[in-house]
């Protein structure tokens, strides 16, 4: 918000933009929620679900319409990625990958909206803070990665059985000697825990940083000098175009790693 930026400078502008809409902003307790992340992610989730669902319901095996052709393109792309990595029943994993890919992409794409647009509109309705990119919220990225983590554990047990998975946790990768049980288990725990953390932090870090760069450049626009304004416009455009690549790649990486982790859970060591 330009007015606030003038009052408190760039730092306050950015701090304002990095504050979530939350009923208990001041307290910051665990049992508060980020309404902005929740509403935007839900709205995009519903958009994805309804869009794909209405197309899927009308899907014809004959000549497809434009929408159907586009959605089939996405579906076949995702299916191909899953097929390359995972050689088993894809009836769950492939739609999971599709959900991850499209949802993350849509949420990342919120970054392409002008950084002040939604906060400015919502300020008219008395909403003080609004962060439009749910994937720049750790809660969002960890929600997804923890769900994937639960699926990893579930499929590990399902594919290997309780005994088999326990055996693997304690005997791989070093060997089955009793002295090696503890090191094996410790290493496996680290490996296991690193998956959801890296998955969530990678996406969060990229989107958070991207958002921050947008804010810094937007700060130039209100700096009061025409030269800085021009630089800001050019920079914002350039970073926006570059960001199209980043949001696509991050959505793709999140999807591929989800597939890889879950198909690894099926593998026997």
């Amino acid at each position, binding site marked *: 918000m330009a007015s606030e930026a003038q009052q408190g400078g760039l730092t306050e502008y950015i701090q304002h933009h990095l504050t979530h809409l939350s009923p208990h902003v001041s307290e910051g307790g665990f049992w508060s929620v980020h309404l902005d992340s929740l509403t935007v992610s839900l709205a995009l989730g519903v958009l994805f*679900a309804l869009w794909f669902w209405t197309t899927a*319901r009308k899907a014809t*095996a004959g000549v497809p319409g434009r929408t*159907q052709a586009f959605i089939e393109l996405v579906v076949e792309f995702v299916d191909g990625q899953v097929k390359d990595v995972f050689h088993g029943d894809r009836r769950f994993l492939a*739609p*999971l990958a599709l959900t991850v890919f499209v949802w993350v992409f849509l949420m990342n794409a919120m970054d392409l909206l002008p950084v002040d647009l939604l906060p400015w509109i919502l300020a008219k309705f008395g909403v003080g803070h609004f962060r439009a990119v749910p994937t720049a919220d750790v809660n969002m990225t960890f929600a997804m990665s923890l769900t994937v983590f639960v699926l990893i554990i579930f499929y590990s047990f399902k594919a290997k059985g309780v005994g088999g998975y326990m055996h693997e946790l304690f005997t791989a990768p070093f060997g089955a000697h009793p002295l090696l049980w503890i090191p094996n288990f410790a290493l496996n725990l680290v490996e296991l825990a690193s998956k959801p953390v890296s998955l969530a932090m990678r996406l*969060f870090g990229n989107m958070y940083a991207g958002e921050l760069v947008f804010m810094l450049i937007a700060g130039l626009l209100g700096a009061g000098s025409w030269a800085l304004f021009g630089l800001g416009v050019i920079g914002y455009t350039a970073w926006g175009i570059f960001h199209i690549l980043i949001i696509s790649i991050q959505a793709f990486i999140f999807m591929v790693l989800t597939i890889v982790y879950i198909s690894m859970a099926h593998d026997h060591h």
Partner: protein
Amino acid sequence: MEFNATLFGEILSFAILIWFCVQFIWPHILNAIEERQKKIAEGLAAAERARTELKDADARVAVEIKKARQQAAEIIDKAQQQANQILDKAREDAVAELNRQKAAAQAEIASMAQRAREQLREQVGSLAVKGAEKIIQREIDASAHKALLDQLAAEI
């Protein structure tokens, strides 16, 4: 970075979205794609089949044409043979008929000539007798010399 209950809300929405996608979106789209793939595969197979069938048909047609040509040639040969036979027979018949008629005519001519000769002989005989009668009317009795005159007539 601050963790709060948003995490649970997002986990719940993520789970619901996954469920919805697994249940209602993925199968429909994949069905359509797979059905179309099947249709295309069937179409290609049908085209391939049609092409081989056409080739077969062409080969069969060629064989049939060859056979028909052969048959036609045979029929023409046979017809020519038959025509020749008919012609030969007609010629033979004609010759035979000619000969028969010629023979009949000759026979008639011969019998007529015979008859004419007989008549002529009789007439010559009677003429000779009449001439002789006139010459030797007085001394020769017709009845006494009849046998002699008949013998003369037979010798002529």
